[in-house]
């Protein structure tokens, strides 16, 4: 029987990053992926004959440390141009944020442009303070002296670099809602709608929910090509990102097995000893790293018998009911969004006409109903990568909110109704689009859960809100990638800092394991 230094459960991008980093350290590593292909929610799949797409469609936070450590450029990754964001408007007057999150703004008044520049600079400055905290391992409060932890807080926040007034405003705003903050600075509803959308994307929050600004900071703490807040549709699609990470892993000697769902983590005398596959096959290793959802890891694979009751309670209490649906359209030809130019069509198109609109879209989600007028983020990935669609045809990929995981009426009957509501919105902004549809695939959170084995279909593998961040992520007792089980680590989006295609949890976990000599 072969045995490994480390087994990584789950071949999502974080699992692959962790495996590659550990492989580079000289460890013998095996990745086990349940699906037929690695990549998790970033894998590219055919959804209609000749049409391919990936659920995660935009890159805005793949971390430079990950790029560097795994030499992803050498492994073929290139970002392509920075993509603009277009705040669509029904009257054909969209507002466009060019460059990295609106270095320049077009489609609005000169005074709004000036206000935006000032506000944007402030947002990036404050997101920059949080950036180091969202990049390193969170501190262990238990084993840290007060001196150390306050020192961490001080250096981490690098608050000292801010002027007095700026520091005061940073602290004032930290737990505010995005809507109130935007209202303090801006007048344009389209711009405020876009910010509201970006701040709440992937979470169970409306723009007026307390702390919703954190979501925007989280986004702006990401960067592409050294430009904070930037986004790209990578050349070759998300599949190319996964291919580059996979190539790095393989050249580090990592073994990858697909169609190999892990059923159980073997535990002997309180220590992880290996993994049992659903086939019953047992593979042993000194260290087991779970790159899948924390709840699945502990409740299903470890099992409550090996855990303490209080810990089980905390794991069960992690909120992870997703609100995002994913729409894939196979179109006869590229659609035309009113007033949007060619570069705009290659960027990110957002339907979120105002902050109030986003809030109203959120309201029914609180009571288990979908938004009758959903908000969404649209890309046309086949424009940049023609291999994704047959000649002349087009792929539309849209992330749509709000679609509560536990829909009261059930998704079986709810899904066709929700698809209709989404198409009605699209029609308003791209008249005639409905007639171009050859095939439509709508993934509700329930579908996402099944397809990617993501409980709740949750973007971040657990709500990314203040109480589930930093050392409380995913829950006390399992933060900082360690777990109560010796030799078992976490490295997926459910761990600090959270989800999105960043590779940070994977990289940090691998570094932690190397530091702990695991």
């Amino acid at each position, binding site marked *: 029987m072969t045995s490994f230094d480390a087994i990584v459960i789950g071949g999502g991008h974080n699992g692959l990053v962790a495996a590659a980093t550990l492989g580079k350290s000289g460890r013998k590593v095996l990745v086990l992926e349940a699906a037929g292909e690695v990549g998790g929610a970033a894998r590219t799949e055919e959804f209609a004959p000749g049409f391919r797409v990936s659920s995660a469609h935009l890159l805005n936070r793949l971390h430079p440390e990950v790029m560097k450590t795994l030499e992803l450029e050498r492994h073929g990754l290139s970002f392509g141009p920075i993509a603009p964001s277009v705040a669509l408007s029904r009257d054909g007057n969209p507002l466009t944020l060019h460059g990295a999150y609106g270095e320049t703004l077009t489609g609005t008044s000169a005074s709004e442009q000036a206000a935006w520049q000032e506000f944007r600079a402030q947002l990036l400055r404050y997101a920059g303070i949080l950036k180091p905290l969202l990049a390193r391992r969170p501190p262990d409060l238990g084993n840290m002296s007060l001196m150390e932890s306050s020192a961490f807080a001080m250096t981490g926040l690098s608050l000292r670099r801010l002027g007095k007034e700026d520091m005061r405003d940073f602290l004032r705003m930290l737990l505010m809602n995005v809507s109130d903050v935007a209202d303090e600075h801006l007048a344009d509803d389209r711009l405020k709608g876009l910010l509201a959308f970006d701040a709440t994307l992937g979470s169970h929050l409306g723009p007026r929910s307390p702390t919703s600004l954190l979501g925007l900071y989280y986004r702006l703490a990401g960067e592409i090509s050294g430009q904070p807040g930037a986004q790209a549709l990578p050349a070759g699609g998300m599949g190319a990102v996964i291919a580059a990470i996979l190539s790095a892993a393989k050249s580090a000697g990592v073994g990858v097995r697909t169609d190999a769902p892990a059923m159980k983590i073997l535990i002997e005398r*309180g220590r992880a000893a290996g993994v049992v596959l659903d086939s019953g096959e047992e593979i042993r290793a000194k260290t087991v790293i779970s790159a899948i959802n924390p709840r699945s890891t502990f*409740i299903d694979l470890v*099992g*409550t*018998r*090996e*855990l*303490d*009751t*209080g*810990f*089980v*309670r905390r794991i*069960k209490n992690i909120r992870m009911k997703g609100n995002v649906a994913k729409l894939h359209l196979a179109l006869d030809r590229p659609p035309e969004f009113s007033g949007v130019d060619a570069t705009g069509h290659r960027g990110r198109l957002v339907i979120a006409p105002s902050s109030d609109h986003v809030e109203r879209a959120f309201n029914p989600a609180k009571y288990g109903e979908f938004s009758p007028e959903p908000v969404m983020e649209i890309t046309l990935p086949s424009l940049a990568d023609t291999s994704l669609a047959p000649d002349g045809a087009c792929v539309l990929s849209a992330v749509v909110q709000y679609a509560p995981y536990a829909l009261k009426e059930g998704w079986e009957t709810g899904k066709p109704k929700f698809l209709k509501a989404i198409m009605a919105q699209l029609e308003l902004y791209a008249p005639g689009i409905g007639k171009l549809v050859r095939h439509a695939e709508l993934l509700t959170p329930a579908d996402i859960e099944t397809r990617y084995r993501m409980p709740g279909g949750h973007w971040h593998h657990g709500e990314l809100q203040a109480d589930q961040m930093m050392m409380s992520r995913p829950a006390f*007792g399992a933060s900082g990638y360690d777990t*109560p089980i010796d030799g078992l680590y976490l490295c997926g989006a459910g761990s600090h800092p959270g989800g999105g295609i960043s590779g940070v949890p994977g990289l940090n976990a691998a570094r932690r394991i190397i530091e702990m000599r695991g």
Partner: protein
Amino acid sequence: MPKLSSARLTAQSHFRTLRLGTPFQPRIDALMKTNDWYDWGGYRAPASLWDEELEYFAIRSQAALFDISPMVKYRIEGPDGEDFLNRVTLRDVAKLKSGRVHYTAWCDDEGYVLDDGTLFRLAPDRFRLCCQERHLPWLLDSAIGFDVSVLEETEAVAGLALQGPTSVAVLREAGFAGVERLKVFDLAEFPHEGGRVTISRTGFTGDLGYELFAPAELALSLWDRLWKAGELRGIRAIGYTALNRARLEAGLIVANADFVTAEHAIRPDRVRMPDEIGLGFMVDLEKGHFNGRRAIAQARAKGSMRHVLVGLEIEGNIPAEHAIVYHKQKKEVGLVSAAIWSPMAKRNIALASLSRPYGDTITDDLWVEIYAMRELRYERLMKRARIVPRPFIKLDRRTASPPADF
């Protein structure tokens, strides 16, 4: 009075009786002469009934009947019952055979004791857990992933302790045939009034004694059956004061008297690991995972346990209740949680919690400071204390098999 509000008033009767009666209350009320009640987990329980001194001697030389119905009881049943209890409690339940009882305790994740109690294995898949505190949410959450049901049965099951040298004779006289065959910690079921009563040879006195559990509906007939059978064998009803003396002689600890349970402790340094309250012997690190295992193993490895519970013998005859313990008469090192002049041991005894290394590696030159109130003036006494093994008394009749008849 308008109809609506009178209906409402009847529905609100609960707050008119803030202390509940137990299924035995009519009998206890009839025997109550001192009107000396206390609150036991929300129940009206006798501290004494007629004379606390004589009640104590009923335990040691006759047969004492004590109502333990307020004790919290859980029924745990299912194919995973043993695994579940192994995960929750400290001792190895696989070693507890059907028809046996053991004394055990359970901890939270941090290894701090939530409670201690007795676990009855009524059948291979059926258990009863008896304790001081309520734990239903904890037990139910602990049951996630186990094929087991946990049912609160405190109200449904009435309990009696029958303790003392003539207790076996009383039971035999009452017609519980074969009861004398029960060894210490054995249990068996006996017919009673068309139902069943579970009798175990257990107790909280360090004496020969039994505990009886029956459905609440059978409580009064059970009481009467024992009372009648005990008439010529000195059966007496007793209250907690007498029992408390007996348990102290037996060296047994009481939750929230000798230690603060983890869920009750407000101050962070008041919680205790099993090793800190003399329950370290229960911890079975070999049996597989249980709540608090990692924390306890780690604390042991690091030597980070900070307290120790000891038995003390104190010079003189003045009980040192809640006295401060000193080293070299100077340094404060602990506190007495329970103390009496023991009539059986003829010694002045106490349980105390000391801060390590005192009581652990430093055991000499210990003193207690007793304030004796003498006609409105405190006399401060500094008395020498010696750490002695528990129990303070050992009665052969507790374990003799078969027990002596009377």
